[in-house]
């Protein structure tokens, strides 16, 4: 495996600022990015990634690999929670197993964005429709998670009828991160098609600033992830192992699907990252509301405290090496 990929990733500004945040917590500095500043950056990143994806999607259209890839992504977000649940159920009750499973079926937009930045420094192209795949993988995972809860733990939940499926579906499909991502994607599509003058005028905001804003946000993510390390004792060795091994397994499944779909290396890496990443934005918020019986420190700490840093730091270059190995060499 090409260890220089790992080094190049480690020494890029976004990952270095992530480390700086982690170190701040470990040495006990009082560095913090006070609320709601992180929200500003997360809203910005979702808006910008959606808008840029929409612009590109308009150019590529919906033909070729687009629909099969999106379909495969959605299928993964339905299947991953199922087999994750089976593994987790051996150690956790139905509530916790379902919540953690949903977390791993869904995706991490920040991991995806960091992978895009990695591809850009590698000068590997990728397509806008991958953002559509990103956007469509959150809701199914949430819904599967809730189905698992109702199936696996009905007797423990006397008021299961009270779960108000309407509220749950709204939370799954209209939560702010999915909504903003899909909305910005559609706006990007419309602008690319009907008011191209708007593209260059948006560029300094949505494009040029992007890399720096990502770096700033990752500084905060480093702080938040490191604060979760303490909670990991509660999670235990089994769950920590799960949160590294399950992404690796999903990555292997993902790269085989990417090969089957005939994706190029850039899109293939993004597809693998979608499979291998776990949600710490939309899913935890939905689970906290709909499965209050599950312990949030379990699903947040693993997704944010282990899987996210793992993916950001060594996962992305490992997946890149995997993609380079498994995909047929370009002619």
């Amino acid at each position, binding site marked *: 495996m090409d260890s220089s990929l790992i080094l190049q990733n480690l020494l890029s500004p976004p990952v270095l600022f992530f480390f700086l945040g982690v170190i701040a917590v470990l040495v006990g500095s009082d560095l913090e990015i006070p*609320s709601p500043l*992180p*929200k500003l950056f*997360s809203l910005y990143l979702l808006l910008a990634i959606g808008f840029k994806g929409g612009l590109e999607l308009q150019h590529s259209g919906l033909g070729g690999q687009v629909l099969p890839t999106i379909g495969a992504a959605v299928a993964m977000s339905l299947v991953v929670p199922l087999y994750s649940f089976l593994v987790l159920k051996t150690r956790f009750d139905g509530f916790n197993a379902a919540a953690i499973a949903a977390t791993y079926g869904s995706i991490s937009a920040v991991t995806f964005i960091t992978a895009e930045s990695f591809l850009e420094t590698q000068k590997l192209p990728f397509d806008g429709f991958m953002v559509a795949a990103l956007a469509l993988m959150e809701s199914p995972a949430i819904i599967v998670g809730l189905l698992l809860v109702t199936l696996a733990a009905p007797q423990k939940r006397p008021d299961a009828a009270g779960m108000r499926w309407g509220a749950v579906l709204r939370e799954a499909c209209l*939560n702010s991160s999915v909504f903003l991502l899909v909305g910005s994607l559609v706006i990007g599509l419309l602008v690319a098609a009907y008011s191209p003058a708007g593209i260059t005028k948006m560029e300094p905001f949505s494009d040029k600033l992007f890399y720096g804003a990502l770096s700033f946000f990752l500084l905060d993510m480093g702080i938040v992830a490191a604060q979760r390390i303490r909670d990991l004792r509660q999670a235990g060795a089994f769950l920590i192992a799960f949160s590294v091994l399950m992404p690796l397994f999903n990555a292997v499944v993902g790269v085989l699907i990417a090969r089957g779909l005939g994706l190029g290396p850039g899109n293939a890496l993004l597809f693998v990252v979608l499979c291998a990443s776990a949600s710490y934005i939309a899913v935890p*918020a939905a689970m906290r509301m709909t499965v*209050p019986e599950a312990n949030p420190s379990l699903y947040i700490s693993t997704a944010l405290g282990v899987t996210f840093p793992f993916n950001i730091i060594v996962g992305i270059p490992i997946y890149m090496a995997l993609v380079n190995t498994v995909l047929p060499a370009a002619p």
Partner: protein
Amino acid sequence: MKRVDLILSERELDAVLKAIDAAGAPGYSVIKHVTGKGPHGWVSEAMDFSGLGANAHVIVFCEAEILPKLREGIQPLLDYYGGVAYVADAEPL
């Protein structure tokens, strides 16, 4: 008159405010971004960007007659999702 203090997750705030309205309270005040610790562990603002939110502190000044109806509407929410509710005496200035 009575003063009721409720502290609970921001996610359940809307449901609680509806219950307060339904109980016939003349008004309420809400402070968001409250952090804290309780039986369910530590709640911080660190995950605010994710929509998880922190706690809210709700204050209701109302007549004692309203308390039973308030309890009825709110207690199930607190039991299911967590949070605390306390009552004290208070007089208009």
